[in-house]
């Protein structure tokens, strides 16, 4: 090939490379680092199992949360909302604290959860010495509806003088809000906030990826009420 031909080829290759970069789209990440979030229960029909998938629909956002004025919940719940909002890229989840519990989608209370005989589904969490948490879900027997409100309980197990109590209450609140937004299972990895006995204070990248995926997965449980 002549020098002129080589020069033309180089210009053509450069032009094609520039055009290729100019026309290409952003490359989406591979999302494969997540855990099972669906709650698996014996099927309502009695045969096999149901995998219950829930997320707050767009038309119910922002989720309304009523918060008891106790145990720093009025500080910890807004911080938990912020932590979970940051898991999402496209505004999939949002929540606000409301003053009227009768219209709330989620109720956050301080103290021990009531006896198990009063709830259909309870997700226990954070069995640390300092505090514990629980989220109660009232799913209808046919497994198609979630009766609102969802109830979160944050229970201190040690005295106020315990130096680890405040951080335990904060991370347990964020963990329980993770259940309330739709992560109805625990991660098996202790580095995740949604591990059954969480130690990290913020949602991990795996927690965030799980939340992001569940908010684009077609749910089979819809909220009803209040």
């Amino acid at each position, binding site marked *: 090939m002549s020098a002129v031909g080589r020069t033309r080829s180089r210009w053509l290759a450069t032009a094609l490379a520039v055009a290729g*970069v*100019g*026309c*290409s*789209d*952003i*490359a*989406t*990440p*591979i*999302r494969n680092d997540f855990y099972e979030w669906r709650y698996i229960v014996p099927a309502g029909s009695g045969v096999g199992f149901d995998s219950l998938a829930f997320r707050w629909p*767009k*038309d119910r*956002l922002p989720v309304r949360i009523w918060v008891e004025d106790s145990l720093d919940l009025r500080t910890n719940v807004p911080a938990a909302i912020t932590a979970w*909002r*940051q898991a*999402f*890229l*496209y*505004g*999939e989840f949002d929540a606000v604290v409301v003053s009227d519990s009768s219209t709330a989608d989620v109720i956050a209370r301080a103290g021990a959860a009531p006896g198990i005989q009063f709830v259909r589904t309870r997700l226990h969490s954070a069995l640390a010495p300092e505090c514990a948490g629980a989220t109660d879900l009232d799913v209808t027997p046919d497994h198609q509806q979630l009766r609102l409100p969802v109830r979160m309980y944050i229970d201190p197990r040690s005295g106020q003088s315990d130096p680890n109590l405040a951080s335990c209450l904060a991370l347990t609140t964020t963990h329980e809000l993770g259940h309330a937004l739709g992560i109805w299972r625990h991660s098996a990895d202790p580095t995740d906030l949604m591990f059954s006995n969480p130690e990290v204070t913020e949602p991990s990248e795996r927690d965030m990826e799980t939340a*992001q*995926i569940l908010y*684009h*997965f*077609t749910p089979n449980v819809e909220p009803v009420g209040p």
Partner: protein
Amino acid sequence: MLKATLLLVALLAAGEPRLQAQTEYHARLGAVWTNDLVRDFIFDEITVRQSIAPMLALGATLPVGPRGYRAGLEGTLASGKFHSREEGGDIDLGTLRTATLQLGLEGPFSSALRWRAGLGGIKYLPSDDEGVFLEGGPIRFLVGASVDYRRAVMPRWDLMLSLGYDYHRFSTDELKHRGFSQSQGVSRVAFTVGLSRRPQ
């Protein structure tokens, strides 16, 4: 680029009378349309796009050469809502402002029509540091071109209609942090109307 911009601004600001006499100023209002900023796929396609936004453009040019060419600086500010879209509906993501600054060259097509081409930057200014802008709005390199129509309406004042196009590659620190690679090609088309003050 930055040095040339600063030099032009400094020259104009210095108040050199001969330069001021040759300076053309313009101000326009209009709207800008933008295509998708982000395209993602999680079970379905998700896009993020800014709505058609009102835009303000301010600029000044100085003559370069004898054939009617002028070099100038133009800044724009647009402010509008932006939203994510997925099958099943849109989600309002708040307000997104964009500011651009371009150093450009313009020349005549005819007595009433002129072309402009420029290089510069675009800065994204979201109302909230959330979602794709969690780690802040980026500054990106920008290229643009436009066709301007001018018609005298008053002594020394022209009505100016401008149809402009610009292009940049969009990404944010948060998108990179989430594993997005490369960037999204973003085209913007703006139509603006305003006044231009001719040189003395």
